[in-house]
């Protein structure tokens, strides 16, 4: 009986278009259980399964394996000839925080002021952002939205204490639906010694003496230190009494989990010297550090390994920092860090370019990184680094069903996304770009 049902269900799906499948998924009686059968499954938690089944139930992965039974009533998707992967995870973005870079009214990614530990990305993520459907159509199923992290054409400030980064899935009616974790890390743009700048008033490059730049760096670093030390005292005070015993300070309160070592700091630094300074600072203050950016992480790889500092690298498709660096300096870095035993993930550090995440991972693979590490650098490794590996990053029972079903290697430019599951729901790959394409493809010929 169940065999017959299965056979019929398979036939039905084969005859249906993705749109029809979606339509049935969106009715009130939507199936909450799905089974992807006969697909090659890359769980990233072990070796690939050549002919396996993934069962999705109530938003979670219920079972994965070569001999998994399809539950009665499950919507079956024939995965023959297709490949199944965990959805990609973009570890640094301004997703939902910025719509049109040049229009400040649509940008909420950077608050003014230098110390804003209590601002939280999740508060300002617009679930209706056109970037979300565009991005998920490229196979990215979850992101970290990072305040004060710049981005293409960003003119916003880069606060030293930038606020809290939030992780969310790229589908849902509200942020409450989408949110994976509201507070994932505290952003620190580590102070640097800057001698060159661009003066907007005169539209010219400005240069100042090194000593002057260093003085400002020291002032910023002292202020940052002061914040952390005050937060430590504050955290001790909270530990010794109720909030009625002292005056509440929401900024210091936001830093309390940081000084307690519960919330990691996501520290943006690119130059070797700045990374060294940041590692030294976090070591001294006993902060759990994640490096972000890391253009010259290779110069301090031994330090990063010995201090167990993971890195979220900016896109490898970035020109070298210095004129006399090898032309492929950033392309080679993931392989070099892997060899040195430094844990890393890749991020787009952007919003509209988020969909180049897979392309970047493939380019790293073309320059010495193994295919397995390239895939994991945009799935499992960001999940591990950000402390979310219990929810996303691999195809394992109990994890969020953020899954992509593709025609092949998800990092390759021409691979098609066949089915997209986010939070266990079969999710549309329709988006603003596809709609405009279809509309203007239909313009009558002259």
């Amino acid at each position, binding site marked *: 009986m169940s065999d017959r049902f299965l056979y019929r269900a398979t036939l039905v799906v084969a005859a249906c278009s993705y749109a029809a499948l979606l339509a049935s998924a969106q009715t009130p009686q939507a199936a909450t259980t799905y089974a992807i059968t006969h697909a090659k499954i890359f769980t990233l938690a072990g070796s690939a399964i050549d002919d396996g089944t993934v069962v999705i139930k109530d938003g979670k992965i219920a079972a994965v394996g070569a001999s998994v039974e399809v539950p009665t009533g499950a919507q079956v998707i024939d995965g023959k000839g297709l490949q199944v992967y965990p959805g990609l995870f973009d570890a640094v973005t301004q997703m939902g925080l910025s719509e049109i870079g*040049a229009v400040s009214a649509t940008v909420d990614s950077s608050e003014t002021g230098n110390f804003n530990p209590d601002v939280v990305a999740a508060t300002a993520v617009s679930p209706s952002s056109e970037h979300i459907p565009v991005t998920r159509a490229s196979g990215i199923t979850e992101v970290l939205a990072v305040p004060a992290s710049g981005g293409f054409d960003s003119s916003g400030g880069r606060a030293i204490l930038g606020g809290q980064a939030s992780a969310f899935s790229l589908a849902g009616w509200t942020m409450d639906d989408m949110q994976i974790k509201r507070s994932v890390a505290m952003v620190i743009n580590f102070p640097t010694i800057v001698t060159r700048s661009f003066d907007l008033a005169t539209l010219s490059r400005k240069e100042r003496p090194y000593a002057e730049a260093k003085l400002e760096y020291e002032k910023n670093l002292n202020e940052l230190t002061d914040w952390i030390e005050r937060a430590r005292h504050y955290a001790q005070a909270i530990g010794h009494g109720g909030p009625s015993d002292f005056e509440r300070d929401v900024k210091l309160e936001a830093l309390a989990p940081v000084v307690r070592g519960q919330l990691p700091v996501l520290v943006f630094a690119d130059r070797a010297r700045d990374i060294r300074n940041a590692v030294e600072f976090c070591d001294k203050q006993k902060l759990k550090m994640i490096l972000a950016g890391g253009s010259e992480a290779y110069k301090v790889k031994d330090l990063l390994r010995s201090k167990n500092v993971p890195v979220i690298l900016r896109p490898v498709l970035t020109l070298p920092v210095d004129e006399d660096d090898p032309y492929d300096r950033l392309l080679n870095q993931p392989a070099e860090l892997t060899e040195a035993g430094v844990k890393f993930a890749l991020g787009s550090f952007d919003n509209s370019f988020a969909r180049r995440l897979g392309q970047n991972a493939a380019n790293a693979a073309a320059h010495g990184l193994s295919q397995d590490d390239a895939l994991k650098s945009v799935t499992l490794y960001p999940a591990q680094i950000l402390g979310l590996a219990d929810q996303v990053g691999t195809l394992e029972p109990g994890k969020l069903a953020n899954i992509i079903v593709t025609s092949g290697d998800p990092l390759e430019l*021409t691979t098609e996304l066949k089915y997209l599951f986010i939070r266990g729901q079969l999710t549309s790959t329709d988006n603003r770009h596809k709609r405009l394409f279809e509309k203007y493809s239909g313009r009558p010929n002259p």
Partner: protein
Amino acid sequence: MNLRCCFAAVGALILLGTSGATWATPPDSSPVVIRNATILTVTKGTIERGSILIKDGKIAEVGPSVKAPKDATVIDAEGKFVVPGIIDCHSHIAIDGSVNEGSISVSSIANTAEVLNSDDIDIYRDLAGGVTTANILHGSANSIGGQTVVIKLRWGQPASKLPFEDALPGIKFALGENPKRSNFSLPGQPKRYPATRMGVEETIRAAFTEARDYKNAWDTYRKKVAGGDKNAPAPRRDLRLEPLVEVLEGKRYVHSHCYREDEILMLIRVAKEFGFKVRTFQHILEGYKVADELAAAGIGASTFSDWWAYKVEAYDAIPYNAALMTRRGVVVSINSDDAEEATHLNQEAAKSMKFGGLTHDEALKLITINPAIQLGIDKRVGSIEVGKDADLVVYDRDPLSAYAVVQKTLVDGRVLFDRDKDLAGRAALEKEKKDLLAKEKAAAKKAGETKPDEKPKPPSGDDAEASANGGVQ
């Protein structure tokens, strides 16, 4: 000698070092033969396990086998792919200083050809990405911008050798948000005319009205002189209008930056009114909305692969743009507008197969023969055919893949980028840099000892690094 000078010297030495190995081999006239390659000719199909014979910088023979002279340098491309050199129809590399003469709305006096910098490291980096020809454009701050030049990426040659001999010069126009300075107004600064798309059109019409009168004045003068009038007074020369007269005479191409469909049609109208043709629209992110009009006007479109949402006029940008325009009969190219983007134009072209379903051949055309047609240099470059320039790229696999890596890039038959040699030379360059830095440090120390009052103590280690690079910006 300050540290910055020292670093400039190190840089120069490294540049020499990088290319020193490749300049000499092979010399101009010595033949080169590439064997066992999968040759994607672009215009004549694919040749499996084929060969290319290069003589005097030109492609002498292409086919399953070629008769190579005994003294030919052999490049064994077993398992590799050879494609025509990539042509980047929108580039700002090799320009010394700023790309925008942004102070005025008609800056046709400025010329990128006069400020070429052959030492720009981005020439080498883009060669390493397979680019062999680039359209060096002025910026987009002006309705009518500066004059432009097509160059070959002849790394190691002086600036005078960079311009592409047969290419017509161009001029940059710009429409929309940039010339109207939408995103660039600063507190306290007066607004510059134009500030609307209406004003952009008026600026172009006004300039061409002047140019037409100026041309008539010269035509009349020349007629008089030809008729024997030796006393006819010559009109006063106007360097701003001369390039526009060349546009009217079809001697200079117009490359116009644009985004929105309405402004695209506007410029087609204005050009028609004055009797000139727009050669290419650049960016043209809404080109897919007016593809039929573009095809009818015979204007090329040079666009991005998937950039969007960085400003309002880029909000309707779609990655299907190149494919949709191609399907409607427009000659389309994918460009970089950026030194980094230029290093992977092959990947950017590949995206048009996924977005809009172009074939492999059509996608490859977007970065080879199509930009060659747009720049009027398709008789010399853009495909692998006998008689064409030997501008070639050797990839380790199909170039329309994110995993493809350039192995060699040839310009005029000379290997100007060789990945193996680049990798092999790195240790020596590293050592040379270290030695030079040590020498500089020692010299500074000595200078400090002899003139203690005049020289500040040289910064050490990291500080030297920071000072030389100006810190992180």
